């Protein structure tokens, strides 16, 4: 079935092209003005016209997000390790973490601005705050769902808790970890843009905010597309790393 395989491979691009065409057709067909809803063509024009500022803003947003994301990996993994390997830590910390995670991050940004001023601080911290929770939960789940038999097999050999964690717990939680990275990276972008829009002086969020307030809808949409593209690229990167390193967990899909 060569044809269907090709169709499957190209399907994302086909859907993308179809969406753009439909979008263009609707905007052109109904004569919607660009300050309400710009067409893909107009957004493309903005990309070319403002490629300098857009790239600069994108780069800024990108590395602020990466800093926040790196922070959330470190903290998320450590916390996940702690609550996944100790029942006491789990019981003690989990309710607080859930409460913390439920706080809308948009409400936290103004507080961060008071503490750290306008600039990088709030962006990095918002990206971190919004994205560490899934990492923690997934690492903890991976560690906490060890088969008791396997633990017995190892404990009878004199394995310490640490041995079991390193030999079995950690490798076992790797698929969960990569799964959580894919969620966390998209959240981290949300966090950065949120901070930039509320209290930034640069970056894609700030650019969109300014463009929006000047009724320059095509440029604001160009910002949206940029964010989407960056998040998608990072998601694909982590998917690729995941497949490379934890292929054993995806064996069902290898036959396709």
């Amino acid at each position, binding site marked *: 079935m060569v044809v269907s395989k090709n169709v499957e491979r190209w399907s994302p691009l086909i859907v993308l092209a179809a969406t753009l065409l439909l979008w263009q057709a609707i905007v052109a067909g109904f004569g919607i003005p660009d300050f309400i809803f710009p067409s893909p063509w107009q957004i493309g024009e903005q990309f070319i016209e403002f490629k300098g500022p857009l790239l600069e803003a994108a780069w800024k947003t990108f590395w602020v997000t990466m800093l926040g994301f790196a922070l959330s990996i470190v903290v998320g993994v450590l916390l996940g390790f702690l609550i996944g390997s100790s029942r006491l830590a789990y019981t003690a910390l989990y309710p607080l973490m859930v409460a913390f995670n439920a706080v809308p991050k948009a409400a936290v940004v103004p507080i961060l601005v008071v503490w750290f001023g306008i600039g990088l601080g709030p962006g990095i911290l918002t990206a971190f705050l919004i994205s560490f929770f899934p990492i923690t939960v997934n690492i903890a789940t991976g560690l906490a769902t060890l088969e008791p*038999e396997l633990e017995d097999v190892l404990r009878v*050999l004199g394995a310490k808790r640490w041995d079991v964690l390193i030999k079995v717990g950690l*490798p076992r939680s790797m698929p969960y970890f990569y799964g959580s990275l894919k969620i966390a990276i998209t959240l981290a972008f949300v966090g950065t843009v949120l901070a930039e829009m509320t209290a930034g002086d640069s970056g894609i969020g700030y650019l969109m905010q300014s463009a929006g307030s000047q009724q320059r809808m095509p440029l604001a949409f160009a910002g949206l597309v940029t964010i989407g593209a960056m998040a998608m690229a990072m998601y694909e990167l982590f998917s690729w790393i995941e497949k490379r390193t934890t292929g054993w967990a995806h064996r069902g899909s290898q036959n396709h």
Partner: protein
Amino acid sequence: MAFVDFDKVWLAYNDELLAQGQFAVEDISLKVNEGEFIAIVGPSGCGKSTFMKLATGLRRPSKGTVVIDGKEVTGPLKITGMAFQAPSLLPWRTTVQNVMLPLEIVEPYRSQYKAKKKEFEAKARALLQSVGLAGYEDKFPWQLSGGMQQRASICRALVHEPKMLLLDEPFGALDAFTREELWCALRDLHAAQKFNVILVTHDLRESVFLADTVYCMSKSPGRFVVKREIDLPRPRDLEVTYTPKFTDIVHELRGHIGAMRKTGVVVPQ
């Protein structure tokens, strides 16, 4: 002197149950000679797995003593190897790496692991080949059939040359033909290496075919009710399972289980 010596062992899982006098196993006494193969049969939930935990030192008795190899058991007993109904192999390791896992943990292998890795690997491969897994050493567990995985699991339990092998319904999830194949594999390993085996099972034919002595356990309270020596000559061929003598022993044991079931219902606590 007996290799395994349970002397009037009682176990309650926690202090609350102990105070209420609810024991998972009661008054268990048994003596096993060096190299003996024993099987423990009984209905589900009769404390067979609890017995395993006692014999490995993962649990300490509430009353009585467990002495293995001349020493009272006070903690995890490294001279044992365990295998369960689920093979529980690690999917990110190849079969041979899975078998080598105990060597990374148990002393004295652990401290020599880096230096003697080649030697250990050769040993693991030889063990896998001896149970008919030649050619599958470098495959991942999920590329193996259930029976093959269970063979590898038994190899993992044996790789550090334990004096005692504990098997908790190891063939329970396999089809009848694969199960018989694995009986023979275990029989041959036991004949070659002379370790002690404690096999927990609810398959009477399995227990009679493999064991020197079969103990029947009753349900709540978990007690030994019958000890039956199996005097079939070794080496035993699968054909022996179709002889009248074999069938008689199985039938006799089945009678004990059946009797326990009935009294178990009637006898008030």
